[in-house]
């Protein structure tokens, strides 16, 4: 069919014949249908909501139980950073030179000293969340960590408590100052190889 034929066909077409009542009721019929669709979309039937919530709670409990009781996955990089396996590997590879291991959006990378001049202090695990930026840093007591535009000293005490100290900046589990509102910090001392970390209770 060529273009003039299509044009002739369209020009000859007519609207389907409807009774006048149809057009009179058309607007209210459309409004009723839209209202019904809206109710259906936003307010599920009560029994469906209950079943969904119960299923979600059950799944949550199962996942929580699994996370609580799981053993560190041999290949899980986060666990390997946190329990010191990565640290020990890299320390063996670069004795006295490893300052920090950093896991961020670019992947995992290390900070190495040119010389073997890094003291063998207690290792520390840090998780730093700043908005969407999430970093894990494994370093040692007495080393510096970059926080935005400033360097902050990482220190751990005899009891394994970690503190971060800088110019106008302090963070510990008990008290903090100078932190941006979006900044969230978690820190703990990495246990020695003989004293592996036990799973913490979920609450």
């Amino acid at each position, binding site marked *: 069919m060529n273009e003039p034929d299509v044009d002739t066909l369209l020009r000859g077409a007519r609207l389907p014949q409807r009774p006048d009542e149809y057009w009179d009721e058309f607007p209210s019929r459309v409004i009723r249908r839209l209202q019904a669709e809206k109710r259906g979309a936003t307010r599920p039937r009560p029994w469906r909501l209950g079943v969904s919530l119960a299923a979600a709670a059950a799944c949550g409990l199962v996942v929580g139980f699994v996370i609580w009781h799981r053993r560190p996955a041999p290949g899980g990089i986060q666990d390997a950073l946190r329990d010191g396996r990565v640290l020990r590997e890299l320390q063996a590879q670069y004795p006295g030179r490893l300052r920090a291991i950093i896991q961020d959006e670019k992947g995992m990378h290390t900070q190495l000293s040119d010389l073997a001049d890094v003291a063998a202090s207690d290792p520390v695990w840090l998780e730093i969340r700043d908005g969407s930026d999430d970093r894990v840093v494994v370093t040692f007591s007495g080393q510096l960590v970059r926080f935005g535009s400033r360097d902050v000293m990482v220190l751990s005490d*005899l009891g394994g408590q970690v503190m971060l100290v800088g110019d106008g900046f302090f963070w510990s589990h008990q008290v*903090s100052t100078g932190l941006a509102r979006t900044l969230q910090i978690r820190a703990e001392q990495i246990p020695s190889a003989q004293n592996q970390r036990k799973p913490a209770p979920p609450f």
Partner: protein
Amino acid sequence: MKTRSCVFSVVLAGLLAGSCSASEGVTVSVFDFQADGNFEAFFGTENAGKSAASLLTYDLSDLAPLSAKDRGPVQEGFDFDVPIAPAEAERMGRALGATSLVNGRLLRAGTSIVIAARVVSAETGRTYGTMVRGDPSTPIADLISQLSIQIGKITLVQNGVNSVSWGPADIVGTCKPGSLLSHDEVACVMDIDGRAIPDEVKNWSQKQQLQPGLHEIFIRYYDGTSTAGHSFIINASPGASYEVRYERQPNSNPVLWIQDRLSQQPVTKMANASVGGGPHIIKNIDEGPFGWFSGQYLGSGPPVVPPAK
């Protein structure tokens, strides 16, 4: 302010010269602390870091078997914001004759005061941290005393020495009971490091705890008609017990001092305290070595001895 800071430095320098001799074993060298601007503004001083280091050195020297060393010329090269290499720590330790090196930072965190310290082994470079925290009513002398004990424990661990417990000292007043015609004569502690003792005359026999180390104690004498006072600097030894003593001849000022209860020997000079009948402004605390620390606790001004009734 400068005058007070100078007095502080002079008093501590004198005390340090007299007591901080080096001995074999665990020796700590304390470097100047760094004070954040808001901390110094809060206390109205420019030398808080230096003063805290001096006070800490003195307190550490009192914690046997530790000894504290004067830093001498080796002040540079141990910046708090720079990690120290083991070889550098060893070099500095050798130069100072110290087994541990200490520095730190003073900060204000909200309503808290935080003093954080870094303790580095001069033999291995192994580094620990520790901190103390107080609210604005906590005497700085107590915070630094507490910090010295924590640093002491770290240095003992770093040097493989068994842990030692350093308990607090205490101090009480003295009272000579009066007769039907005369009032009791009381010499008591009125104020410790800017912290006033409530109803000090009535509570003269109540033991006041002192953390080991330097403290400024204001002593009050009262006999029902006249009152006098004097400020003393005392070096409280761990576990020691002290008492306030006085002596007064007829028609003369009372002589006040503090002595060790065990040895019955004075641990301060014997000070002639002038008697005042009316409200007596005590300038000693505000002008004393802790004045710039304690001043902020005293509200609108120095303490006032209540007038004799």
